[in-house]
């Protein structure tokens, strides 16, 4: 952990990240740099620490030691204004959508830009409408989340995150709670974002998707980055027995 010199070209710069829950070490020294416009997928067994890593990046989880910076801004727990500043650059999409159930789809998208960025209401409304159209839900502005399918809810959640114009989007198993026939519509939106140059860091179990959109795939195992490479390297020429085993278990 001696060198923590920030890497100047990385949008997300993680060095020597350690995290324990009680006696259990979940992250045992993660080093990961994500460049601007890069799409990185994190794969691995459940319990390998991949979700925890993602949650550390926007401060939902505290890490014990190491260095984490987004867009050159170091993450400082306990400094609320700095945390909010950082979170404006980091969008997060959750497995369980977490839409605000008392607000319509449009108001879910409008809320943070109005409150945090002080966007005038009409402007926020127009932007929310545009964003909903981008995710294919232009006609659902006034629907409550409970009136939408899971796939539609997740697309609203994506629009809500995009409304803050983040530099990087974190996706935490965003299709795991969806019925199989709804997975495609969400992945399509993510793919569109990737092609438009959004920086994406996703934890996923959709291997075909990871192979297709990733610039880089990270395999996590027991709290460490075990193997990392292009989709071709990771999926076609896995080097370590752990990754080989993980991939072959998926094929069965």
């Amino acid at each position: 952990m001696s060198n923590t010199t920030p890497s100047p070209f990385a949008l997300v710069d993680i060095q020597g990240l350690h995290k324990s829950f009680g006696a259990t070490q979940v992250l045992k020294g993660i080093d990961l740099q994500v460049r601007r416009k890069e799409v990185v997928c994190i794969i691995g067994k459940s319990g390998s620490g991949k979700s925890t890593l993602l949650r550390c990046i926007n401060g939902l989880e505290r890490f014990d030691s190491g260095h984490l910076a987004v867009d050159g801004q170091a993450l400082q727990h306990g400094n609320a204004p700095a945390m909010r500043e950082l979170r404006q650059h980091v969008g997060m999409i959750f497995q369980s959508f977490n839409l605000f159930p008392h607000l319509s789809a449009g108001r879910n998208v409008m809320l943070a830009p109005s409150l945090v960025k002080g966007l005038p209401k009409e402007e926020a409304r127009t932007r929310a409408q545009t964003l909903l159209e981008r995710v294919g839900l232009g006609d659902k502005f006034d629907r409550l989340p409970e009136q939408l399918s899971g796939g539609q809810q997740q697309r609203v959640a994506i629009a809500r995150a995009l409304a803050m114009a983040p530099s990087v989007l974190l996706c935490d198993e965003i299709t795991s709670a969806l019925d199989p026939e709804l997975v495609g519509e969400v992945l399509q939106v993510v793919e569109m974002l990737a092609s438009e140059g959004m920086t994406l860091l996703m934890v996923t179990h959709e291997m075909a998707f990871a192979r297709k959109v990733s610039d880089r795939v990270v395999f996590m195992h027991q709290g460490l980055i075990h193997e990392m490479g292009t989709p071709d390297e990771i999926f076609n020429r896995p080097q370590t027995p752990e990754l080989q085993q993980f991939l072959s278990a998926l094929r069965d």
Partner: protein
Amino acid sequence: MVQFALWDILGFLVGAMRWTVLLSLIAFAGGGLMGLALLMLRFAKLPGVGTAVAWYVQLFQGTPLLMQLFLVYFGLALLGWDTSPMVAASLCLTLYASAYLTEIWRGCVMSIPQGQWEASSGLALTYAQQMRHVILPQAARVAIAPTVGFLVQVIKGTALASVIGFVELTKAGQMISNATYQPFMAYTLVGLMYFALCYPLSWWSQRLENRRLA
């Protein structure tokens, strides 16, 4: 011996009942505002503050209201403030209601899924914005029924203000009883009047609860 007509008695009791209602409303409004402030402090993650609020709640839940009334009434006098029973009772019941309402509402806030906090934090909302726009609107739906139910407790609680000399419904009943030597009749009328105040609220609370669960 003077005979009192039933109408005179009822008129006197209804007059006193207005004070019961007024005291309840003051306690409820004051307790509600203060309870909301305490609720905000409770979840604010400021070191020591949440614990302090928890102790405040325990203090009021762990002692009889009657004793709280004595402490406030005689305590204020000891501090040199010459207060009327009305002011002392209002203050005490406000504090009492704030403690209970904070605790009721705490449970409602706790029932909101963690994901709502995480999503709103992730969108860079401040704590106050999270509470105001995300958490409390959802918690309020859960809170309405138990809050209305607690109003019944406050109304009944005001009866204790009679012991520090405040003439509300119970005290009025006592006076009628002393004047007519018919305590059973007096307190029956008083009881019916409390029931007339409280039952509609209990019924409403029940209905709200059923509708929420439906």
